């Protein structure tokens, strides 16, 4: 097996599981309980908060709010910030390549009377800074731009984006689900007001994610209840998942430089080999891209059938942004935003590396890819 879909799901790092599993059976308390058992798990939650803060270089760990998923963090960031600051203005901007868990909360705001603008990107998926500047008005309360895109790997020019957004007096939210633990994020230097990151994408269990809420940023809860997490996220804390996210963040901070250099070297060879195939093209930015990320398109064939062919005949797992593989039978909005036609978007393949991948995989994957493309083109009427 060569698993190349780490953006969709990551195995839990065995070290993380060894660290966090005690919070399932022995230390199972509720952090709100006042007896010792509750206090010890509250300490675990606070320690994890510190590790997550350190990973993104937040000065104050109290600015980290734990949620249940990146979707929830994005909802809290987008809806919670816009609704809380609606008196200031009712305009929200998001880049055209945002994840659906940013897009749909933003569209929800639109239904509630907000004006929603989309910032276009160039053919590499880099946000158009001039267009952003033009769209920024005094009514703009919030702008959301992903740190890096999970489908095409492109890393955005965060500091330039931040300068423009702050120049207009708006807040900047950044979905860093795909980027955290892979590139160095510094919320202060980068000028980020709100940042989403997810535990599983760091190698932690699902069930924990975080939203960084910078100093002075006003946000309201979008899921009323018991008022945990300083009132911003109700519900009993998932201590196992939070502790696991903390440990995964600690490991990421420690090992990122080395591990990403390793994955990038494999990735670079993979891209080189795959681009030898006829009518294959890279999607996303050639250099400003996540180090573990390779994404392609192949003309005249379709991504779901590529995916199935690679899985069935070669035990290789990849992702695709093809219309045929989506719930709605729409091609990925990211691929359309970088200017691909529906037909071009059909041939999309996304490969995301992880710890299990080795340089020995490159030739195997490239050969499998060549055979797959050849076979499917043989069936294609185009």
């Amino acid at each position, binding site marked *: 097996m060569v698993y190349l879909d780490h953006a969709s799901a990551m195995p839990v790092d065995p070290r993380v599981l060894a660290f966090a599993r005690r919070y399932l059976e022995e230390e199972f308390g509720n952090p709100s309980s006042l007896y010792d058992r509750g206090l010890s798990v509250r300490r675990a939650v606070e320690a994890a908060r510190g590790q997550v803060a350190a990973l993104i270089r937040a000065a104050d760990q109290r600015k980290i709010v734990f949620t249940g998923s990146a979707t929830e963090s994005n909802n809290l960031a987008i809806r919670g910030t816009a609704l809380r600051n609606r008196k200031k203005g009712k305009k929200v901007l998001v880049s055209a390549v945002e994840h659906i868990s940013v897009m749909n909360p933003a569209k929800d705001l639109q239904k509630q009377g907000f004006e929603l603008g989309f910032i276009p990107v160039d053919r590499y998926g880099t946000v158009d800074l001039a267009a952003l500047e033009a769209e920024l008005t005094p009514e703009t309360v919030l702008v959301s731009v992903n740190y890096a895109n999970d489908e095409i790997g492109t890393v955005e020019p965060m500091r330039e984006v931040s300068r423009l957004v702050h120049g207009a007096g708006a807040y900047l939210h950044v979905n860093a689900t795909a980027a955290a633990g892979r590139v160095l994020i510094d919320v202060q230097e980068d000028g980020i007001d709100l940042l989403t990151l997810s535990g599983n994408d760091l190698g932690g269990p699902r069930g924990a994610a975080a939203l960084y809420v910078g100093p002075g940023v006003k946000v309201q809860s979008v899921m009323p209840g018991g008022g945990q997490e300083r009132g911003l996220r109700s519900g009993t804390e998932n201590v196992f998942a939070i502790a696991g996210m903390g440990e995964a963040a600690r490991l990421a901070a420690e090992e990122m430089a080395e591990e990403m250099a390793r994955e990038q070297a494999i990735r670079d060879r993979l891209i080189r080999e795959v681009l030898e195939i006829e009518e294959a093209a890279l999607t996303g930015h050639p250099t400003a891209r996540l180090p573990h990320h390779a994404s392609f398109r192949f003309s*005249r*064939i*379709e991504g*779901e*059938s590529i995916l*199935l062919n690679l899985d*069935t*005949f070669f035990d290789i797992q990849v992702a695709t942004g*093809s*219309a*045929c*593989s989506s*719930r709605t*039978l*729409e*091609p990925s909005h990211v691929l359309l935003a970088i200017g691909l036609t*529906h*037909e071009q978007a*059909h041939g999309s393949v996304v490969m995301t590396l992880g710890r299990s991948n080795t340089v020995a995989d490159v030739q195997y994957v490239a050969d499998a890819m060549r055979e797959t493309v050849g076979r499917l083109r*043989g*069936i*294609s*009427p*185009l």
Partner: protein
Amino acid sequence: MEDRPQIGYSKRVMDHFMNPRNVGEVENADGLGLVGNPVCGDLMQVTIKVEDDVITDIKFKTFGCGSAIATASMVTELAMGKHLDEALAITRQDVADELEGLPPVKMHCSNLAADALHEAIEDYQEKKKKKEAEMAA
């Protein structure tokens, strides 16, 4: 528990995807059907050879998903050797049923395959009519 949803493709779909029958183009085809699906831009081509109103050869080409490939393969298998009237009666449901079902979102792919077959037959019949008219004239 009843009503458990189908998960993934059936064994038969995967079989037809992995070993598609009748791939390619019939030489000097008597009829050609080429249909595109407006929903997602997929493309399906069916070519047929006809003798005495019986399909004696049939081949397909597909630009589309695993389901599109499997349904096309299945439709060629269903139509091979059939009288045109019988072949015209093949419905998308027949195709899906023969494949032991398709995920709901993929039902339109079976439509595509049946449509391409029907179009190929109609193409043949129109050509035949034209030829007969020319002969009469």
